[in-house]
């Protein structure tokens, strides 16, 4: 996880051309912090290299 989320937000916002205003950053940061924690919780789970992503289901 980036040590400085504010810098990360600025960098990604510029890369994606997202017009993030200064006043919005605390909420974006809080949401991103939660999202990244959740994403890392999933990342830590061991999965076989061969597993494929799921998108549309067929049974």
């Amino acid at each position, binding site marked *: 996880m980036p040590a400085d989320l504010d810098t*990360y*937000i600025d960098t*990604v*916002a510029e890369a*994606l*051309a*997202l*017009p*993030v*205003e200064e006043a*919005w950053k605390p*909420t*974006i940061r809080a*949401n*991103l912090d*939660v*999202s*990244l924690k*959740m*994403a*890392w*919780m*999933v*990342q830590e*789970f061991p*999965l076989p290299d061969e*597993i*494929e*992503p*799921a*998108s*549309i*289901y*067929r*049974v």
Partner: protein
Amino acid sequence: MSDLDWSSASAIAEAVSSRKVPALDVVNGVLTRIEKHNPVLNAFTDVLAERARAKATKVDSAIARGEKLGPLAGVPFAVKNLFDVEGLPTRAGSKINRTRAAATRDAPLIERLEAAGAILVGALNMGEYAYDFTGENIHDGPSRNPHDVTRMTGGSSGGSGGAVGGGLVPLALGSDTNGSIRVPASFCGVFGLKPTYGRLSRARSFPFVPSFDHLGPFARTARDLAAAYDAMQGPDADDAACVDRPIELVSPLLDQGLGDLRIALAGGYFQKNLFPEAKEAIARITKALPLSREVELPEAMRARSAAYVISTCEGASLHLDRLRTRPNDFDPAVRDRLFAGAMIPAPLVDRAQKFRRWYRAQVLELFKSVDVIIAPATPCMAPKLGQTTFVLDGVELPVRANIGIHTQPISFIGLPVVVVPVPLEPMPMGVQIIAAPWREDTALRVAHALEQTGAVLAKRPKGF
């Protein structure tokens, strides 16, 4: 009919088909109720009085000619305003979509319900872009819970839950990505069906997270839910995810009873983060059913995390251009979550997708030894409008992000779920009946059996 206001769809269809009540009288009655109660409930954003009366007149003429109508003859219904309705811009609860061109054709699910004789009466309030668990819309105002108008309906299909729960219509359609049918069904005390992913066409509806968006019905009885589902089934090439699978009617199977169904209770994750009323709702259901065992959905908490990550990222991808060009026209709470979703590194999202495959395989394994799994639908009764936090298991948490903690680990693997209403005081509480893919019949059978015992009931709210 003694009480048209609270009649089931099935009773209305029977009365209209047998000429006891003209469809036009039914529609006029519904329009009057909407006029009376909608200023408080704020369930409808658009009322289609002229269209509904014209359709009702056609239904009555067809019956007068002796034509055989479908099983929903004369049944008024309404749809979340993310369905295309001819002549209306498809708003999806947003300010931005109001400037879209009006839809030139109804969504296929509307067409199929109308082919079965049902009558569209309007479009319903919803959380902005369906990214919502509360039913509070910043542009249209909050939809209000008919059991206590100071409380939330739940989202994002809040208008659908409020309209059916308040008796404005017997049938409504909504969408469910992370729980948006199941949460309002729970809070508003009605039945809701999230079908198997790919079963009902989503064509001509506004998406949110296409890899786990579902459309489905709300009703006040399990039989009505089944009738609506049956009318809407069938392949549709216009939805890439809609399967080429034959129609499998569930209505004729409803009265089979529980038979030798293997019914399990979800343990572990699903027995945590519950207010006392949610525990009471589960207790009442488990007492009314012959439970065979308790099962644990492995890694359910991690599954919820994966669902959260995929959802916010896929949603951000959908709205990226609008975020770039019209960020001030979003609800800030939605906008800032979508901004965050756009910033999650791609490998983490891909990992969540792969985890989804693993998790789904584990859950499907459970269905080799059970037929349905019982789980809470929401952690609590409907919170107060504007309430931002609640305390779960001793921890203060944001309401908006945590109402769906028990629905998210199910929807993102596409399982069919029926939510049934347990009539508690002061507010109803929903319970999920989860089945294997394509086994809507089993979940609805259990819902119907529970309804027969009296354990579940869509109770009429005071004043409605």
